[in-house]
């Protein structure tokens, strides 16, 4: 049993190598992070710094080469859809399924009856402004709508932990800001633990309790920054501007390294 103060997700000295055509690449090196229940933690860093790999390892999709990952004190051995749901950058909706059937996919795998799946999916889609779109297919939806359906599909699993890999990365700036505001609301209602990956300073500051700044490849933890400002966050407030400048100094250095490294 865990005490209430124990972290829900623990990464201890986690490393990951990839074998590529041009040799072995160290993607993630000795990353240690602890995430408390109901916390919103963002992994921030330049492209190719291994943020997505870290997320994939927490989700059980990728096996680490060294170190260990514990969820509620138990080692991760593979995907566990009762505990963790993932949202990816590309919405990854099934084009042959309607919005409703996309949202019900995970429940279908768990053997939940069709009527119940429909009820749960509608209950998620309606507050997302997707009432009346449940019969539409992904190609008939806008990018923002598709991403909301993908998030609804993850929420349908009703897991305590949500992992989001640049979920708004493919959206335009305005949609992205609105989706961020919307996610803050979802988080308040659902009280989930969220680990979020982005390379956007703005997004990291607007959403997170803590920001884990990662180095260019190999990805290591460079610094962990607490963000204590209340939601919703005014992105033009002086504290936010200061924080952004501070984070930018950190990230800039790594982005330059990443550029020189040809990433």
């Amino acid at each position, binding site marked *: 049993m865990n005490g209430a103060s124990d972290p829900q997700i623990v990464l201890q000295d986690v490393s990951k190598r990839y074998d590529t055509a041009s040799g072995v690449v160290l993607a993630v090196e000795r990353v240690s992070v602890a995430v408390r229940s109901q916390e919103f933690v963002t992994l921030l860093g330049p492209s190719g710094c291994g943020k997505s790999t870290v997320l994939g390892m927490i989700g059980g999709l990728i096996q680490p080469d060294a170190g260990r990952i514990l969820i509620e004190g138990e080692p991760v051995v593979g995907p566990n859809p009762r505990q963790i749901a993932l949202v990816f950058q*590309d919405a990854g909706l099934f*084009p042959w399924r309607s919005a409703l059937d996309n949202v019900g996919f995970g429940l279908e795998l768990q053997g939940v009856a069709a009527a119940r799946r429909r009820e749960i999916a509608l209950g998620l889609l309606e507050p997302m402004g997707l009432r009346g779109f449940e019969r539409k*297919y992904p190609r008939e939806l806008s990018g923002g709508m598709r991403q909301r359906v993908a998030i609804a599909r993850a929420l349908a699993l009703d897991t305590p932990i949500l992992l989001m890999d640049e979920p708004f990365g493919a959206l335009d700036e305005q949609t992205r800001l609105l989706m961020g505001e919307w996610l803050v609301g979802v988080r308040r209602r659902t009280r989930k633990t969220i680990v979020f990956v982005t390379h956007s300073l703005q997004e990291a500051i607007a959403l997170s309790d803590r920001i884990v700044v990662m180095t260019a490849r190999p990805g290591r933890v460079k610094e962990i920054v607490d963000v204590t400002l209340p939601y919703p966050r005014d992105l033009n407030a002086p504290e936010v501007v200061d924080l952004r400048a501070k984070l930018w100094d950190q990230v800039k250095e790594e982005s330059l390294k990443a550029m020189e490294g040809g990433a």
Partner: protein
Amino acid sequence: MKVFLWRAAVLVAAILIWEAAAAPLNPILYIRPSSLPGAFVRMWRVPELPPLSEHLWLTLREILVAFGLAIAAGLWLGFLLGLRRSIGRIYEPLLAALYAIPSVVWYPSLMLFFGLGPASKIAFGFLLGFFPIVLAVLAGIRQVPAPLVTVAVSMGARPAAVFRKVMLPAMASTMVGGLRAGLALSVVGVLVGEVLGARSGLGYVINYAYGLLMTAEYGVLVVLVAGAVLAIDGAGALLEARVRRWAG
């Protein structure tokens, strides 16, 4: 509907022009469309041959068996090579090399091996129909988007569920296209086989009419084959459109 009327008008006009052009010419070399109905009646019951319906039925059965075998073998080999990449890497180049050989060169050996009866026609129809199906399965497997598989796995899908709920729907339109091409080629294989050497079947009757300079009768058979192929392909096209709508 308007397009349909136009097509019908063009067809009727073509037949009328044909009729007018062929009328003054030698009927052994030039078929007049108006001679076809009479030829059909004569052809239905040639005294020296079994009735035409028996030939039609035989050819149809040969096509069905050839296509059925092509589907079974094509799907089996396609999935074997596509899903077991260690095997696929070895045998796919061989398959591509075989496909590059014009299939007709195999037919004499098939006749030697299977004889003049239906077996050699089925074998040839199978051979022609088999390749597009295997290739469509291989192409379809390559087209399955990896992110969709990742999504399913992250939600706890086991390999069987990934296959059924992600791979098959993602491959469906490519596979149906391949099946349609395979069916068309199985029809060609069986008919060519019958024309080249047989004792019965539609292709044999075509060859028979041609050999006796029964040009109008030969024309009737060509129209019959064309009608049958159009009907089969039309059904295939409908099925393909349905699957495409479903699979997006």
